[in-house]
């Protein structure tokens, strides 16, 4: 048994950390936070040049053909550095949907462009302020034309194509591919709690849509896609949680009150210890998810749900307590604490809430028992 990343994968992590320390510094992230640009295009191009975007895309489709473990390593570093790019939408969701179910023609059309950082993809699933399910999806596809409203769609304002959850007129829900540059697509940016990641409302009004793959994946395909993304997002969350813990630690060591470092008070020490425990439990659950994803193991549905629950909660805990440790400075715009606080809540909801994933986890354990 070997429950760790390989030396090559660890050197990829070092390389990624070095690159992102410069290219996704706080200053760079704040350009997106404060500016009008939806994402850091320079960073995105740089990631393409590093070969990261095509990491897990097979070589026949223009990728590097590495495995998911390498992708998990990158995800952790992207989460740590809050990289403001459409990586998650494009890679964990759109490319992954194509790889899971796309026809060869669909893969050939999009994957090579994705790998070159020339195309951005997204997943259009939610339809407003409620849970999206197979039964309540209102977006409809009739005769190859799609109509309906999706909100919010992460990176929907900048994406070239979308993987859209919609129902056929028969009521059968599944995934469809839509070229967002075509007719019948209206996109408007929407503000969210995390301005470092852009989101859109997409209104489809008779846009051309084709079923993803043979079109027989149905809703189980949506769940399989979300499971795979859950593992990858869990690594981003672990990276972010670790960064928030590191920030809290640094601040507590440097801040003096009552004549001592605040890091010497047990109220602070125990808080940080609890953050550490949360991060480590999340990391271990995420590692297991990485293993299951890389082997396409039958344990993946349970492992992915556990990784998602643990990582969402650990990140939120670390991000909110990081603000608390910083005291008043922690809730200023100037300090970076809020960047993780925002991202923690965003990542905790982007694939569905923790509440729902806990329910899924138990349902899957029941099915396995």
């Amino acid at each position, binding site marked *: *048994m070997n429950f760790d*990343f390989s030396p090559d994968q660890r050197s990829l992590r070092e390389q990624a950390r070095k690159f992102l320390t410069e290219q996704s510094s706080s200053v760079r992230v704040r350009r997106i936070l404060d500016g009008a640009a939806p994402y850091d295009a320079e960073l995105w191009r740089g990631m393409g040049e590093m070969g990261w975007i095509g990491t897990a895309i097979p070589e026949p489709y223009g990728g590097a053909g590495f495995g998911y473990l390498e992708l998990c390593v990158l995800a952790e570093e992207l989460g740590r550095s809050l990289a403001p790019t459409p990586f998650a939408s494009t890679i964990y969701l759109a490319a992954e949907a194509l790889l899971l179910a796309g026809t060869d023609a669909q893969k050939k059309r999009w994957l090579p462009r994705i790998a070159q950082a020339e195309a951005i993809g997204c997943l259009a699933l939610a339809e407003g302020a409620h849970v999206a399910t197979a039964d309540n999806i209102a977006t409809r596809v009739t005769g190859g034309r799609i109509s309906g409203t999706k909100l919010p769609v992460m990176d929907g304002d900048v994406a070239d194509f979308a993987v859209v959850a919609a129902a056929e007129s028969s009521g059968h829900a599944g995934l469809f591919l839509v070229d967002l540059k075509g007719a019948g697509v209206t996109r408007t940016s929407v503000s969210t709690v995390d301005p470092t990641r852009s989101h859109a409302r997409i209104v489809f009004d008779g846009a051309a849509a084709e079923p993803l793959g043979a079109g027989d994946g149905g809703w189980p395909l949506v769940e399989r896609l979300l499971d795979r993304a859950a593992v990858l997002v869990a690594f981003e969350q672990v990276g972010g949680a670790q960064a928030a813990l590191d920030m809290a630690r640094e601040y507590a060591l440097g801040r003096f009150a009552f004549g001592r470092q605040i*890091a*010497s008070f*047990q109220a602070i020490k125990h808080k940080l210890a609890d953050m550490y*425990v949360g991060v480590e439990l999340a990391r271990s659950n995420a590692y297991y998810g990485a293993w299951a994803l890389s082997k396409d193991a039958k344990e993946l549905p349970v492992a992915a749900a556990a990784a998602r629950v643990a990582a969402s909660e650990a990140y939120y805990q670390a991000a909110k307590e990081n603000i608390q440790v910083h005291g008043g400075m922690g809730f200023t715009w100037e300090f970076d604490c809020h960047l993780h606080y925002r991202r923690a809540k965003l990542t905790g909801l982007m694939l569905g809430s923790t509440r729902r994933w*806990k329910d899924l986890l138990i349902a899957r354990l029941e099915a396995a028992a």
Partner: protein
Amino acid sequence: MDFDDTREEAEFRKEVRQWLAANAEPKSGAFETWQSRYPGRDGYEGLERAKEFQAKKADAGFAALHWPVEWGGRALPPIYQVIYSQEETKYLVARGYFEIGLGMCMPTLFAFGTEEQKRRHAPVALRGQEVWCQLFSEPGAGSDLAGLRTRAQKNGDEWVINGQKIWTSGAHWADWAILVARSDPKAAKHKGLTFFFLSMKTPGIETRRIKQISGASHFNEVYFTDVRIPDSQRLGAVGAGWGVAITTLMNERLTSGDLRGPDFEEIFGLARSVGLEDGPAIKNSAVRERLADIYVKTQGVRLTRFRTMTALSRGETPGPENSIGKLVNAPKAQEIASFAMDLLDMGGVVMDKDTAPLRAAFQESLLSSPGGRIAAGTDEILRNIIAERVLGLPQDVRVDRDLPFDQLPTGAR
């Protein structure tokens, strides 16, 4: 990243399976421990049977896989201990008898004892013929272990011990013990300690069992009245006992941390079998949410141990990050017990083994689990360890660090 056994590991697992199938006792269906199967003669029946099994286990070479070959081990990487434990857990395991001796006392003896002492003690300890206990905690020195007051006074080639220890697991049936005592009350607290080992049959030792809230008696008070220990049984230098004790305690982190009461599988099984006012408990969303929390913690600890074992297999030293397992599992055990009883509603209070689910394992755990949060490092001490040794935060302000020990203030408790 790979959970499959290597070829060597698979061969070892096969060997373990064959041996256990021929020698270990199968569990009966219900939740059962060695102690609950063999409660006779105040627990001594369980001890005798455990010794029989331990001898067979040692003869087969499974009793201390990571020990050097010359002391009956196989010098195997720690991953083999995990494999053995995974297989042994499928059977009724004789736990709680030899862990202290083999996991803590012998490693200390290996580090500080003479060759003759190791030869005398290791083989018989390994076969379970002699049981060891650890005389550390005192009424006035628990979390603050270095505040211990039991006196060791040099008299010729001997040391004379007077004082009291407490919370000593298994002292009532132990043959040998390790002991840390104060040899110099004028020195600062950590600098006046000396470490020994001694026979529990030495005149002047009196052992009294402590009845716990669970009704069980795992611990003892041990009184010393002019107990004489030859200087040859001192481990480490005079005044260097704290460093020796740290060696012992570092090994404790490797041995403790397993949850021995009902765990996720048991509470999950209970939720699937009992009904609430609105149907099966497992279908209740509040129940499902709590079950998910417990599962994620349980898996997190198990998988964190795999990460530790991977590091150990690479030859890295076990670090304080191992404190996580107990810090998570001990409160979790208490939560599981209380949650299970809530699911049983008014009937949850019943402890009758023939009536309560899993032969009252949840109710017993309610009463035993508070101890898990205290023994071998309280929740609070473990958080300090993580904060100080893993995260590198400053130690607490210590008012007692440099004062002579006999000038420290003391309270009534």
